[in-house]
């Protein structure tokens, strides 16, 4: 018994200190196993919110690696550090004042530092979502809002790209602007949306919602597990 337990344990280093943790945990749960409590740097625990950026190195590797702590399994000999927050500057803008059709390049106007991109691709290598970050920055540089928005669609705003960038580009804020511009100016208005808003205003879900408020946690869980998806189309 003791032997088997020994086999399944690995060593990790958290901010320089060694801990023995069971194999198979994510970085996030391994840290909690080691006694840390997350007050920042943790959100959805499901790989969607981008709050859990982590930087690590393996014992025999010279490369720094980056990932999401909630999505990556711990490995033996990992040196870990958590980033609670990336303080990258985000430009303020009024979405109604930045029509990409009226200017040569709104993205460049608001984030002029993208012109410093040297195409080193460090951003893409840092991205835990495998986004072609460099390529969307390049698309932004030539004013292609559509491509910037498309390529960056899976971005979680973890900020790792910006931390690594030698040109101090704020990739994820730039990309969010592009997606907002696409939503506001490039995509067609949906008639379905208006219909839906009207239904909601008329209280189509009020009854169901009130029922849910009365449920216990277990009832809610059951309800969630048995939920049905509407068919597409």
């Amino acid at each position, binding site marked *: 018994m003791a032997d088997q337990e020994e086999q399944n344990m690995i060593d990790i280093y958290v901010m320089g200190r060694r801990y023995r943790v069971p194999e198979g945990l994510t970085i996030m749960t391994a840290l909690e196993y080691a006694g840390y409590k997350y007050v920042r740097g943790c959100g959805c625990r499901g790989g969607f919110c981008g709050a859990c950026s982590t930087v690590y190195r393996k014992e025999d590797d010279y490369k720094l690696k980056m990932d999401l702590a909630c999505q990556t399994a711990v490995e033996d000999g990992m040196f870990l550090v958590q980033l609670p927050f990336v303080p990258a500057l985000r430009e303020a803008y009024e979405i109604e004042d930045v029509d990409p059709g009226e200017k*040569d390049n709104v993205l460049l106007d608001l984030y002029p530092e993208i*012109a410093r991109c*040297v*195409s*080193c691709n460090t951003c893409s290598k840092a991205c835990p979502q495998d986004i072609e970050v460099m390529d969307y920055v390049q698309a932004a*540089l*030539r*004013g292609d809002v559509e491509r910037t928005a498309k390529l960056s669609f899976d971005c979680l705003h973890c900020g790792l790209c910006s931390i690594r960038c030698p040109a101090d580009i704020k990739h994820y804020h730039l990309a969010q602007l592009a997606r907002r511009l696409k939503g506001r100016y490039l995509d067609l208005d949906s008639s379905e949306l208006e219909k839906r808003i009207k239904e909601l205003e008329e209280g189509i879900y009020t009854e169901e919602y009130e029922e849910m408020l009365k449920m216990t946690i277990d009832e809610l869980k059951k309800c969630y597990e048995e939920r049905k998806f509407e068919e597409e189309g």
Partner: protein
Amino acid sequence: MIQMEDGYLYYPGCTLKTKASDYEESSKKVMEALGKPLVEMDNWYCCGAVQSLATDDIMHQIAAVRTMLCAQEQGERELVTLCDMCYNVLKQANKRMKEKPDELETMNEFLDEDPDYEGQVEVHHIFELFRDMKDEIKKLVKKPLDGLNVVTYYGCMLLRPNHVSIDNTEDPMIMEDILELLGANTIVNPKRTECCGSYHTVNRGDIVENRVEEIVARAAEDGADVIALSCPLCQFNLDYHQRVSDHKIPVLYLTELMALSFGMEAGLKKHKINPRGALKDFLE
């Protein structure tokens, strides 16, 4: 010179997609008419807009090399640029990689996620294509630019440094030769190879204003109806900074004039000084 059968692999550069869209539109139409359409690369990267001359600065050559790599991976060896700045940066960076195998090796090691660049791509400016298509151009001229006085302007990037020049650095004739085919009255002006002030436009507009004044004053003295060029930055400087000048000479891309002489209208949209007055005899 170039062998691509159905056209030429084309590197646009960022400015051609924004401020200089007139240049892209007119070039595409002209090349299409010549039966050699410009085929945009599947993927490309901003050239960086300034060639870094520091001997130990490989970082700033990466973007250019990535673009060469895109051409190589598309199976092409010849790459055509329109923008003078892009031409100059790509050509110099490419030359550096060809001539310095140690730097190429360092570069390829850095680009470890990509295939190696083999140094086989050649960079050309669109004017070099025109030089090789004189007969074809002549055949397409339907509305000769009779009586239009054109002063050419080369600026720096097509001619300097000498080892990437597309023509004689001191006495270039490549634009004059094309204009002659179009039937224009070409004026050879001594200011045509002087610098417009370039990027000083960003924070020292006064320097550019002085340069531009000298260039346009001389062009006016020579009786210019329009100035012809190809560099989007020179175009912007000569066009925009005439706002403080007594002269208002339209500044056109050579390909806009070519399109007109072929009986097509292309570009002519983003000019600060409206060229339509000067060109009225040749517009429908």
